[in-house]
């Protein structure tokens, strides 16, 4: 049986009294893009640092490609490329020298530096000191550094940080291409639209606990459907829907609108009930909640 790229069981981290991560179980399959979402302080970066051996877990075990990070750190991290939080590099060194440094330490072939420069479109800046790079190009350099040794697993914390819209599209294409080549990508991002477009699976961490895992193929089933209606008399419409159809999850939305989250009634039932009550129906639109709305709902529902 093929081992998972990342396997974490009962992962926990306490900083004194603060429980930053609480018994997280995580399985990232080979070749998939796993999006790791959470609000600020939810435990994302602490989890990522534990996966890279930068923070020692208070409890739990991590294996990378089947190698225990606690017992065989060097073997476990050999096939990992990473970007943790902010993009950093040695400011006195050029882009090429920063990558050469990484190449030396990862024992990669000499051509790897030029390949990484080309892959991240850094040719123009290759001989520029990293201190003089824009935030976006520093991010590219950090991504190039993560890729120098052609890793099988990429752990990326906010890979789109500092990139302009064109850069985001470019990096998205690169990550998709790498995933198609069989590289596993574990990424966190605040740009939920990015994760929505890229990830095969999404994990949502909230207050240190992994509260939900969504499979892209099954995502539709987990996301909520809303029906939005605009009517001429919203007060009357609300009471009709509550009394006749027994709907409970109704919320007012602007002056004439309502949002109906109950799965118990379809668009036809709602339209019929309103028309029969003499209410003028101006708009009726079934809406699927996007990842952002889903994320907000999941994290707001859990105090």
């Amino acid at each position, binding site marked *: 049986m093929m081992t998972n790229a990342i396997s974490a069981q009962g992962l926990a981290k306490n900083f004194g009294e603060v429980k930053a991560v609480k018994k997280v179980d995580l399985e990232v399959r080979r070749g998939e893009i796993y999006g790791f979402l959470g609000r600020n302080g939810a435990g994302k970066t602490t989890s990522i*640092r534990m996966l*890279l*051996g*930068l*923070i*020692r877990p208070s409890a739990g075990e991590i294996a990378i490609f089947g190698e225990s990070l606690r017992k065989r*750190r*060097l*073997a*476990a*991290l*050999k096939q*990992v490329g*990473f970007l*943790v*939080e*902010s993009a*950093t*590099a*040695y*400011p*006195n*060194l050029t882009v090429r*020298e920063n990558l*050469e*440094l990484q190449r*030396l*330490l*990862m*024992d990669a072939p000499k051509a790897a530096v030029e390949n990484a420069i080309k892959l991240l479109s850094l040719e123009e800046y290759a001989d520029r*000191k990293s201190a003089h790079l824009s935030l976006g190009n520093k991010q590219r350099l950090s991504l190039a*550094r993560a890729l120098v040794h052609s890793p099988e697993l990429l752990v990326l914390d906010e890979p789109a940080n500092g990139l302009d819209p064109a850069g985001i599209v470019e990096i998205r294409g690169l990550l998709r291409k790498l995933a198609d080549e069989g590289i596993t990508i574990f990424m966190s991002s605040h740009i939920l639209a990015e994760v929505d477009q890229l990830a095969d699976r999404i994990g949502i961490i909230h207050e240190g606990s992994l509260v939900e895992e969504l499979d892209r193929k099954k995502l539709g089933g987990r996301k909520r459907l809303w029906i939005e209606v605009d009517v001429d008399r919203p007060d009357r419409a609300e009471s009709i829907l509550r009394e006749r159809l027994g709907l409970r999850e109704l919320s007012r939305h602007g002056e004439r609108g309502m949002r109906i989250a109950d799965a118990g009634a379809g668009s036809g039932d709602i339209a019929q009930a309103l028309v029969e009550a003499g209410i003028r129906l101006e708009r009726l639109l079934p809406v699927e909640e996007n990842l952002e709305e889903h994320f907000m709902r999941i994290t707001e529902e859990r105090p």
Partner: protein
Amino acid sequence: MTFLKVLAAELLKLRRSKLTWLSFAFYVFFGLMACFVVWMIKNPEAARGLGLIGAKASFALNGLTADWQGLFTMFVELGVAGGMIILSIIVIYVFGREYAEGTAKNMLALPVPRSYFVVAKLCVIALWFVLLTAFLIAESLLAGWLLGLGRPQPALVAGQTLDILIASAVVLTLQSLVAWVTVATGSYLAPFGYTIVTLLIGNLMIRTDWARWVPWSIVALLGGMTGPRQEDILLGSVLVLAATFGLGLAGTILHQARSDNCQ
């Protein structure tokens, strides 16, 4: 092989680093100061004429004389006193920059034994200091020639070279503790404060009978910073210096290996 690559990487990190040139510039300044003092001893009337010293002032600085012996004594003292400060700054920079520049996380998450980074950094620092020491020796010879002190005795040059090398080696042994303070605090300020405090302790304790057991005083004794240079350092003092170095090295390695990096 891996360690050599880590060593090569640590050397590469210093490319275009301003501190490398600044450290040599400091040593040029030290040399000029030594030259200036020896010139004043050699030409007291000219110095008085320029208002550099008072009419009644005399040079009784540890019995300094305007000859090769006096010049070499000054350079050994500079090698110890200046070396302790400059070397601490170098150690703080080499270890502390990883935290100041946010690269520690990149370094510590690599599949490389963390002890390799510590030892490689100390090797780079030692190499740097060896070059500075060689520069200081060459500078002392150039200074003597410029001051017109004549041809030095080869035995005297060999003796002074050995003195500077021993003093530099002793100064180096204290630096692993500076490295430990730097990685433990992840800052520039705390280890610099530590350096100042240890210099003060060294200078206070040197006047007591415990001086030969206090690492920072042993260095001062060897350098002759507060009196005639002590040649007969006890074996116990050597062991104290070795233990100090060992403690700092072990502390730095253990800290890098076991502590959380939340940078």
